């Protein structure tokens, strides 16, 4: 043992500077989000972090974040899905037609729509995975097809409104089980439990890594990082509890984020998707069923796009032919801002979610400031470019 260059030893001698350098991207993203929030908090005279606006932020961005989870996996696998906006619109339209025109019960509609999303994903994934047709082309075709089908299904009209039970998908709130209501006890309880869970899991992982001698995050960083996350989480939960409590969609989003983060980072399937995106041929020769995995990432994307479509329709309380228009670009931008690589194999769920929030906070903040949609587009475009340039620059400096 004594003669080997132990990883722990090298990390300690290199110190915090090199650790920060190696993990610049992840910390940078977190700080960027904080900086953007502070900036808009100041320029909007505190409107950004008002309870009602925080609630709105989640409601407005939920569907982007949900699709970013699936898109991250598609992009990590080395592909792209341009059809998600159209699929989202189409599924929302289909749900409206089922519920409003055909009088189908909500409890039947929702599962059917999710399956429909999966089938759409499968129909596209099949050509990408087994016929090796570039995903850009297949999903570009899908984008046109489902945009057209939504128009056809809705006959160019908006269809709505939805029954109350369907709207709850998006606009519902978790009731206060303690009966206090302001602040909302459930929200506070959930927030505190979540913070404790995060810290407990972090400590456990750290202890385990230390036991194996592979921990390289300096203690100060661990403490500061967790303090920021816990503080932010408690702050948000407190604000939410002072309004109407936890939105249903926040719970959906949070649970899905945890599931997908676990799936990509801790499971063999996740690992294999990264391998597939990193070097498909090598992955295949290592016994990884690359075609099936590619296929499944598209099926998964379809299901999430369908869920996003339902949530979006429920929020607007109507299905319009314009729903989901150009949303795929916001989703893809969120994933790239979050640090994913166009060539596949690199990217994290948490990054994609933070990327989506950065986009969301900018949209929201600029709207409050009254900046026109024209400038908003320009600014978002530049932020995307800057994020990717930052990535490439970092990589070059390391190499």
């Amino acid at each position, binding site marked *: 043992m004594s003669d*080997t*260059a132990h*990883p722990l030893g*090298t990390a300690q001698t290199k110190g915090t500077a090199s650790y920060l350098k190696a993990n610049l991207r992840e910390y940078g993203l977190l700080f960027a989000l904080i900086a953007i929030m502070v900036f808009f908090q100041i320029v909007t005279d505190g409107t950004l972090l008002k309870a009602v606006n925080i609630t709105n932020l989640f409601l407005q961005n939920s569907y982007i974040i949900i699709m970013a989870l699936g898109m991250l996996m598609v992009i990590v696998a080395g592909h792209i899905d341009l059809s998600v906006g159209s699929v989202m619109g189409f599924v929302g339209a289909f749900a409206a037609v089922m519920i409003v025109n055909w009088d189908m019960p909500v409890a039947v509609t929702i599962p059917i729509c999710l399956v429909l999303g999966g089938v759409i994903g499968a129909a596209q994934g099949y050509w990408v995975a087994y016929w090796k047709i570039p995903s850009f082309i297949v999903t570009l075709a899908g984008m046109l097809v489902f945009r057209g089908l939504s128009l056809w299904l809705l006959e160019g009209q908006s269809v709505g409104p939805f029954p109350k039970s369907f709207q709850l998908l998006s606009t519902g709130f978790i009731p206060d089980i303690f009966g206090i209501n302001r602040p909302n006890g459930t929200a506070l309880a959930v927030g505190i439990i979540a913070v404790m869970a995060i810290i407990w899991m972090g400590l456990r992982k750290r202890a*385990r*890594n230390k*036991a*194996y001698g*592979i921990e*390289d995050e300096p203690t100060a960083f661990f403490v500061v990082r967790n303090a920021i996350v816990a503080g932010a989480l408690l702050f948000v939960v407190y604000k939410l509890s002072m309004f109407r409590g936890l939105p249903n969609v926040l719970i959906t989003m949070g649970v899905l984020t945890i599931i997908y983060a676990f799936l990509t980072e*801790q*499971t*063999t*399937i996740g*690992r*294999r998707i*990264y*391998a597939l995106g*990193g*070097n498909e*041929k*090598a*992955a*295949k*020769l*290592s*016994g*990884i*069923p690359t075609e099936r995995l590619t296929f499944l990432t598209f099926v998964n994307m379809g299901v999430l796009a369908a869920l996003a479509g339902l949530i979006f329709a429920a929020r607007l309380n109507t299905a319009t032919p314009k729903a989901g228009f150009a949303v795929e670009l916001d989703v893809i931008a969120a994933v790239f801002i979050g640090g994913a690589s166009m060539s596949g*194999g*690199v990217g994290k769920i948490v990054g994609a979610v933070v990327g989506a929030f950065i986009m969301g906070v900018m949209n929201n903040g600029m709207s409050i400031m009254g900046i026109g949609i024209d400038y908003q587009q320009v600014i978002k475009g530049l932020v995307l470019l800057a994020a990717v340039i930052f990535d490439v620059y970092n990589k070059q400096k390391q190499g």
Partner: protein
Amino acid sequence: MQTLLEMRNITKTFPGVKALDDVNLKVRQGEIHALVGENGAGKSTLMKVLSGVYPKGSYDGEIHYGGQIAGFSGISDSEKLGIIIIHQELALVPLLSIAENLFLGNECAKGGVMNWPETYRRTEELLRKVGLREAPATLIDSLGVGKQQLIEIAKALSKDVRILILDEPTAALSEADSQALLDLLLELKIQGVTSIIISHKLNEIRRIADTITVIRDGATVSTLDASTEDITEDRIVRDMVGRDMSHRYPERERRAGEVLLDVKNWNVWHPEHATRQVIKDVHFHVRKGEVVGIAGLMGAGRTELAMSLFGRSYGRNISGTVSLSGKPVDTSTVMAAIKSGLAYVTEDRKELGLILDETIQRNITLANLGDVSTSGVINEAEESNVAERYRKAMNIRTPSVFQKVMNLSGGNQQKVVLSKWLFAGPEVLILDEPTRGIDVGAKFEIYGIINDLSAQGKGVVMISSEMPELLGMCDRIYVMNEGAFVGELSAAEASQERIMSLIVTE
């Protein structure tokens, strides 16, 4: 002969590493100068300093070129003065023609409009110089690696080359192509072109080099004059590794047990040309603890045979039976083949063997994630333990298993690939060119690993284009030619001459 180039006291540091430490290199006008050393010794870095990839000022020391102090701030700078480097990875555009490639960036054009007749005329002239008879409009894609290498040289000649630097030019070439290339270098020498050749193939260096500079650990060890004395390969190896390597192949107790792998009536057709049979009725077997070689020229079908066996990764209409320890096994997918106990270490480790952008740890466990996970959830700590174990056992030189594989040298990368397959727990390993492009010291270590495997009772199939390696390592050698096995020789009867004669007479 006068000195054309002298690099004096070159020192180049990267953050934390001294890549070159006071290196001296003196190249005389009109000679072929060989630069040898283990991988990571600093040869490529030195050439990058010379060609300006590392610009003037980023290193210490002086470059004297043609009697003047020189220093370049980029490749275009050094190319202007006739210093042209041909990298191991060829820089040709596959879907452009020979003519277009030769004058890429240097087109015969007036005001941006191509002068095609002139381009073709000059292309033909250059092709003649390098001994190629291809039409100038031929696409690069349709040429073999050997001819592509000659095109690279022609490209250098089009730029009025004074010093031609070749980085491992014959690493991917067949015996015949290598010979042609070396002959061309000798021919160019007569015409006054000075060359610096980096190579691991010492027999080639002995054949063509006038002077040999040996570099070890970033420093010049010796400069040997081959024109005045006969330099033996052993002498060069000794300088390269800093120790006497009288045994280039480690000793092994040869003890073959019962038949492990048995392949019968193996037939494979080309994946695109359905009428072309690539593997023709091949039979072979491997015993426990046996190292079996497959010799043959490039294109004989050895890699195709291995890949078709391993999960039908190559070819179509595959027929034949594979049994392990007497029982027929399913090898129809890679996963099934791994489960049956086969492993295939690919010829091209960067393209097919490794995920370069991932860590050593993640590469090692990739083919057997099941053993470091419970119901699909990976135990990362256990995974690190496994990686750490292989790092020690295989002597992978790296500060930690969290290093990305792309930061490792060729030999260490190969050890990572081997670790991956050992962790998959195979009975039979097919090693395709296991020592390609890695240095003498690392080769010796790989041979040691192969011997360990044999001692553990595994069966090893070794495909190699280096005949001395097969002769030194194998218990039995099958000779393959044009998709069929044309002979089988025991270690005692095998020799380079017999193998070649089997290939030629069939």
